[in-house]
């Protein structure tokens, strides 16, 4: 156990969950938060961590991170992606169930959780598969997965075989007490598409994925959420209409929440022009209007979380004809600066932005993270919001370099990341 008493001084503490935004020290003892914004009379620090000019925030909670372990270690490992996550200020992250083997047994779930703790020194939360082997038809053993530490079950990016299986999966999740994470996409409408069905795909002759592939799946799920009462979270929305449907469902009181991948808030279908495989993502980058309305939905809180949707790849994965390349971006280390870019562009205030990275995602899965409560584990991200750095080799930790932001200047950089009061990253 870590008995060290640490004082973090000179920073501005922002804890959106407790509506704290003030200068002052943050005191840690035995790996837990003792006091926020003041130093108790009897607190004598063993160590002072001076962070002048920096923001002291709860550690970030990322709802969708592929570490590629187990099964695709040539793309990334818990060690490499854990280091990248820590460098990105992320202290808790969820791993979708499409690992190899799939997270459909307690053994795989425990492997990830335990190796996450030991190798990555972060809180790694496996999302259980809704169906066995993600086969879309047979329910997984959800109660066992819950006991093994899965905070939710999900379909990763694999559609269920029918609306009947979806209904049963929802009902069974309710009785297992697990929320469901859905990445909504109608497989028939998606067909062989690889880019947003819009003017760019029309010009480039790329098979399109219509917006309706998302809205039809959201509509189907919403009807069954209403029918079953399952607590559901829609992951990685891409379209304005889907966001509006979720807003309406929330107004009607349905237990639904949503997140968006950070790249959807910055890039659009235009970025695919020239067949840029680095911008090949799923769901696809959509129109400028979609991007603007996703930003609005984020600001209004309809979308309560931003995730990295981190998908590191080996070089070969992107070295092919556009449709044959593997989708996804490496994004852990750009999550903070790209979120701060939204603050600079006036989309969100800084505390609102941090809420979407901390208590927002944590509350969606009922995780005890993303907030600075006295007595809670000291999971912190300390960052310099003005530090300017370039996305290039010596600064990059992920095994995947597949980001279209490579070479760009970023503003905002993590200086320290702490988990249980232990420094897991020092910039």
């Amino acid at each position, binding site marked *: 156990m870590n008995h060290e008493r640490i004082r973090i001084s000179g920073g501005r503490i922002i804890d959106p969950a407790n509506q704290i935004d003030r200068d002052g020290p943050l005191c840690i003892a035995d790996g837990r938060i003792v006091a926020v914004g003041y130093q108790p009379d009897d607190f004598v620090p063993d160590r002072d961590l001076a962070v002048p000019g920096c923001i002291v925030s709860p550690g970030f909670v990322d709802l969708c991170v592929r570490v590629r372990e187990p099964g695709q270690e040539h793309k990334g490992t818990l060690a490499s992606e854990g280091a990248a996550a820590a460098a990105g200020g992320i202290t808790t992250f969820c791993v979708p169930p499409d690992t190899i083997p799939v997270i459909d047994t307690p053994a795989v779930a425990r492997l990830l959780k335990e190796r996450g703790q030991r190798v990555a020194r972060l809180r790694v939360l496996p999302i259980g598969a809704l169906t066995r082997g993600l086969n879309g038809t047979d329910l997984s053993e959800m109660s066992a997965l819950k006991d093994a530490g899965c905070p939710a079950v999900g379909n990763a990016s694999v559609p269920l075989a029918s609306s009947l299986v979806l209904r049963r999966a929802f009902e069974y999740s309710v009785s297992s007490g697990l929320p469901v994470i859905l990445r909504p996409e109608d497989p028939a409408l998606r067909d062989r598409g690889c880019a947003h069905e819009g003017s760019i*795909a*029309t010009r480039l002759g790329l098979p399109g994925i219509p917006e309706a592939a998302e809205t039809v799946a959201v509509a189907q799920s919403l009807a069954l959420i209403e029918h079953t009462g399952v607590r559901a979270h829609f992951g990685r929305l891409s379209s304005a209409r889907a966001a509006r449907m979720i807003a309406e469902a929330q107004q009607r009181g349905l237990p639904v929440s949503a997140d968006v991948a950070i790249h959807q808030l910055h890039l659009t279908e235009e970025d695919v022009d020239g*067949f840029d495989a680095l911008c090949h993502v799923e769901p696809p980058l959509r129109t400028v209007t979609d991007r603007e309305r996703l930003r609005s939905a984020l600001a209004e809180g309809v979308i309560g979380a931003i995730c990295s949707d981190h998908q590191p790849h080996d070089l070969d994965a992107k*070295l092919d004809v556009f449709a044959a390349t593997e989708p996804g971006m490496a994004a852990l280390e750009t999550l903070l600066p790209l979120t701060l870019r939204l603050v600079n562009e006036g989309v969100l205030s800084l505390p609102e932005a941090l809420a979407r990275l901390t208590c927002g995602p944590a509350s969606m899965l009922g995780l005890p993270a993303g907030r600075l409560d006295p007595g809670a584990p000291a999971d912190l991200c300390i960052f310099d919001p003005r530090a300017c750095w370039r996305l290039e080799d010596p600064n990059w930790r992920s095994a995947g370099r597949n980001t279209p932001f490579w070479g760009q200047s970023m503003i905002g950089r993590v200086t320290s990341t702490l988990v249980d009061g232990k420094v897991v990253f020092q910039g």
Partner: protein
Amino acid sequence: MCAANATTLQLDSSGNLRHFLSIEGLSRSLLVRIMDTAESFTSVTRQAVKKVPLLRGKTVVNLFFETSTRTRTTFELAAKRLSADVLNINIATSATAKGESLLDTIRNIEAMQVDMFVVRHAESGAAHFIAGQVAPHISVINAGDGRHAHPTQAMLDMFTIRRMKGDFAPLKVALVGDVLHSRVARSEILALRTLGVSEIRVIGPRTLLPVHPETLGVRAVSDLDQGLEGVDVIMMLRLQKERMSSAFIPSEHEYFARFGLTETRLAKAKPDAIVMHPGPINRGVEIDSRVADGPHSVILQQVNFGIPVRMAILSLATQAGA
């Protein structure tokens, strides 16, 4: 991972063709230069010895990842008439079937000291990708990539139109049929716009038209009679058989009834209208035989002009400085 746009990838610093991937980004004067050069090659194909030494000592590789007869044959003849050595590689039955990656295939053939790749591939962007990967002295000619582009076909069609009509400016052009899946249509639209025709219409059922056709600079019409009203050029597109099984259209019969070009329908167009088709033709599906073989048809001229136009493109692409 190069995502250069068509213009920067295709032209060298002096604006000469380095690769020929798409009509996008090419100037009107360059298109005219291609047609003028092709014009000069038409006499070569009439000579007793049908050869010029422009590509002597060069090796042209026809790299076909998708089967083709007409395009591959005319490229082969064009290269041979320019005195190049020609290597035909049919990848559809070759290396990638054994699990070799596209890039490895390219690297291996590149290592044989070749000078030019003529590439046909089933996926959009294939020629772009290969052009971004090859050594600086190698030119890539797109012989059709997915639904994206078939720029040499578009140029031979432009050449045909110029031969028949002279000036592009007053022309009204209709493209009829499966525009959604047609690389030929996309390239033709770009070429026609660059050459400044007065109007382009695309005619077909909604299922076979791309979304936002207006962003291509064309007007979508769903009625053939209305769409053909007063046009100078009718470009028919091939309807592939598999469209019936995937719910794009109900039947060949209904398709022909609504969108098939017959003599009666042709009468809606200008009296001197020409009818074009990139081939292969589905007689009785998209076009009636009496039209395909009739006096307005220039379909066989298109095939004939394929050789001088491809000679022009091959020769221009070898002249660019690195």
